[in-house]
């Protein structure tokens, strides 16, 4: 697939009259005994957004974001500069600035043998923005509206469609060139419904690394509208959530946010190196119940959290983080892997060229077990069943994490009963997964809507899990 590299080189270098050899010379000029790592990260991002309100698409926007980030790493020190002009003099200035992290002059002459590294293709290198007409994009949103307003309780429908097309070209100190072409699309619906003086809002969405065409013909419009309507109708009849410690059954799919918050962030290599994560000294130890296996996998075809290569050019992989309850691996970028004496895992990610890469998750999920979901619910005398979630958050140092319910029910004597209002659940990452008592046979990944924020950088991610039961969690209701 030389097409990735050819396209990226033509779109990011040739168009700006920059030769490959001049970039190679810049990398060479950055290298010295004191520099462990250096890279130039060129990127073009084209994105668009269409929104529907009052039954009509009345708003649209388009943006171009292009630039280059230059980085030099010496030990644990990083020098970083970026520019939104891809022109030679500005680039040379950025290189000088970044390498100033070490005050030494170049002490060895470096002549790297440059290689072009091709990679697998976990999604097609397409540009979703131009593949279909704007008319058809608008039609998709109208289809959502028509379907959602069929429920007479619905008083308001908002919908949006967004897509981006990203071209990335990376030159590294290893003397290698890497490229990736990343499409990403997403469709969202939000409804407000009213009944007997009560009002609730719910939303649903779907997305991945493919064309908008994917939303047609796969019943996706129907799926997200039905999901939003199901949530909103449940919540219109909800009672106050209970307060206190109780057993919790978490549904399959998006509730995998639990893993992302409870253990995912705490296993990112920067926190491990700095020993600020509660898991820093726990490699090889049992941190979860037997049967719990948690995986981060950037290679799942067409998934929102997937990448062909990470933002340092490392090929993405499947990394078993927790195997049968034991902590096996961390998620690592090149710098943290080097300092920890480990290998990078393809988890270096950055929001764009203007930010430094960090170890981040891709698609993080729990492997499935043997239980039927019904059996799991039947085993609970008094607790809650959390079918769908909103977002979550974690303090990786104390290990405390939260996530919020957006569609949940009471379980009484093994049966799902009254729907309950949204509430926050809180737990402790170091022992939350030790409380996993039953794991379902229904592993599902989320619908491709996750956004993860860390140090002000937002990136697309995926989560997933089968239905699971935790023996206890604190439910933050009012009753």
């Amino acid at each position, binding site marked *: 697939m030389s097409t990735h590299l050819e396209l990226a080189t033509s779109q990011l270098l040739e168009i700006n009259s920059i030769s490959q050899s001049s970039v190679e010379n810049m990398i060479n000029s950055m290298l010295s005994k004191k520099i462990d790592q250096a890279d130039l990260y060129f990127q073009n991002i084209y994105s668009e957004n269409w929104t529907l309100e009052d039954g009509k698409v*009345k708003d649209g926007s388009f943006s171009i974001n292009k630039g280059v980030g230059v980085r030099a790493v010496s030990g644990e*020190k990083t020098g970083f500069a970026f520019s939104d002009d891809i022109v030679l003099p500005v680039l040379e200035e950025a290189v000088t600035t970044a390498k100033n992290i070490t005050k030494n002059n170049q002490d060895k002459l470096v002549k790297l043998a440059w290689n072009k590294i091709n990679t697998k293709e976990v999604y097609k290198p397409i540009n979703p923005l131009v593949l279909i007409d704007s008319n058809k994009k608008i039609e998709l949103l109208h289809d959502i509206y028509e379907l959602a307003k069929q429920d007479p309780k619905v008083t308001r429908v908002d919908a949006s469609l967004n897509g981006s097309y990203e071209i990335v070209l990376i030159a590294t100190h290893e003397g290698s060139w890497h490229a990736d072409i990343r499409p990403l699309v997403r469709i969202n619906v939000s409804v*407000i419904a009213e009944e007997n003086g009560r009002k609730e809002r719910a939303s649903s969405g779907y997305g991945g690394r493919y064309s908008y065409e994917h939303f047609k013909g796969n019943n996706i419009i129907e799926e997200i509208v039905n999901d939003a309507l199901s949530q909103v109708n449940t919540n219109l009849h909800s009672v106050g*959530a209970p307060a*206190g*410690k109780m057993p919790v059954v978490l549904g399959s799919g998006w509730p995998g946010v639990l893993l992302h918050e409870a253990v995912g962030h705490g296993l990112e290599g920067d926190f491990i190196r*700095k020993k600020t994560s509660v898991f820093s000294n726990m490699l090889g130890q049992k941190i979860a119940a037997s049967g719990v296996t948690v995986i981060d996998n950037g290679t799942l075809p067409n998934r929102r959290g997937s990448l062909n290569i990470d933002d340092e050019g490392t090929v993405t992989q499947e990394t078993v983080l927790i195997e049968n309850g034991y902590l096996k691996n961390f998620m690592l970028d090149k710098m943290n892997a080097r300092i920890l004496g480990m290998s990078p895992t393809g988890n270096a990610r950055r929001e764009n060229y203007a930010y430094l890469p960090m170890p981040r998750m891709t698609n993080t999920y729990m492997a499935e077990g043997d239980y039927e979901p019904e059996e799991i619910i039947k085993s609970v005398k008094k607790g809650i069943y959390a079918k769908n979630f909103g977002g979550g958050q974690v303090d990786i140092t104390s290990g405390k994490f939260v996530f919020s319910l957006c569609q949940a029910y009471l379980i009484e004597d093994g049966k799902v009963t009254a729907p309950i209002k949204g509430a926050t659940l809180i737990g402790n990452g*170091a022992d939350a997964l030790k409380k996993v008592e039953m794991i379902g046979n229904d592993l599902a990944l989320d619908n491709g809507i996750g956004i993860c924020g860390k140090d002000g950088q937002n990136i697309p991610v995926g989560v997933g899990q089968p239905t699971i039961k935790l023996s206890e969690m604190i439910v933050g209701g009012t009753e």
Partner: protein
Amino acid sequence: MTKNHKQNIDMISNIIGDPIVPQLIDLTKYSMEKILAKGASDAEVSTGLYSGVCINSRLKKLENVEYNKEKGITVTAYFGNKKGTASTTDINKKSVDDTINAACNIAKMVYEDIYSGLAPTELMAFNYPDLDLYHPWEISVNYLIERAIECESYALDLDDRVTNSEGVSVSTSQSYNIYSNTNGFLGHYPSSKHRTSCILVAGEDTNMQRDYYYTVSRDLRSLESSVEVAKKAVKKTVQRLKPQKLTTRKSPIIFHADIASSLFGCVISAISGSNQYKKSSFLHNTIGLQVLPSWLTMQEKPHLKRGLGSHPFDAEGVMTREKYFIENGIVKNYVLDSYTARRLSLETTGNASGINNLYINNQDISFPDLLSKMNAGLLVTELLGHGINIVTGDYSQGAVGFWVENGEIKYPVDEITIAGNLHDMLSNIISISNDADHRKNILVGSTLVEEMTIAGH
């Protein structure tokens, strides 16, 4: 690390003299003309330049030096009531032309929106004030590095219980904002912001706690010293060690000044034009109604000199002005831009860029007196999660804080949630102390709420 200040090799340059600024102003004029030439009835263009340096030290050593320089242009084309928007970070003529074409093409694709358009000409800030927002820090990068290491060294050596650090960050940045529209408005002004933050870890293994302190200012002279920042970060971090569990109960709650702004941020969101016209607010249609205690006011002061939230005009060129959103507990104004104002048949309040320095009054009592007033209850110092529903007012958040008895802080607590409904929480605010957090855009002291549900063990 060299200590020679005179070296100045990495001196941070002033944005005012940057040749890109006049280039961006010319580009603004060019873009407006070009959009009109394409048949648009109106146009607006905003551009800006941002430049800054951020230093991170960790464990007394330099960790990162980040140089930022960003620019961009956003154009909006109106063809009658049809609107399209496009932006680019690449400001060469071809990219800008492509961006203008994209905006015009979108405007031709979308449906009419009778509420869309520029803000009214008579509200434009043709004589906008100078708010004294620009105080560049003329300093070398080496000095910033020394300052970061000094702050962190002080923090790490002050208290044995501090075992680790997520680092100290010292940053200085400058922005130049330019906005123009076909009402004949062109406004532009520079601003600066300087910041020092310190994040520390105390304790070990599964008994670690992290906390932080930061100082931020337009003007170096009002930035707290490195030593002050270090001291406060140490105090906040070590006092969280060995948290205890609470049982589930109902209790009075104090939202500490560090986080009380989030409570009033909910009010702003609920009275925002967008949530009002979408009828998606627990305070829908409350203008003229009492929603907070009768002693409470929320007043916006956008023209404060050197204010962190100050703006001479908003994102539509409308003159920002002093006003009450809440006066004597009663909703006086919604938070509006011209679009949401038209949807509600009102006039814009000049809040297209959000709120600008929102002052919430206090009852002139100190924080210790507020603790005494509560007597027994929970002092919340940190909130976690996204459990706030603006449509219904249902509120449920993870919390960290301290248990208070006899008006005194007894011990830290964590792994709890606090829950209630914003309607009740807001109308049952008992008191606010005079310890407002001046680093925030919403300036409010610690806030005592009569009762919420705590879920715990």
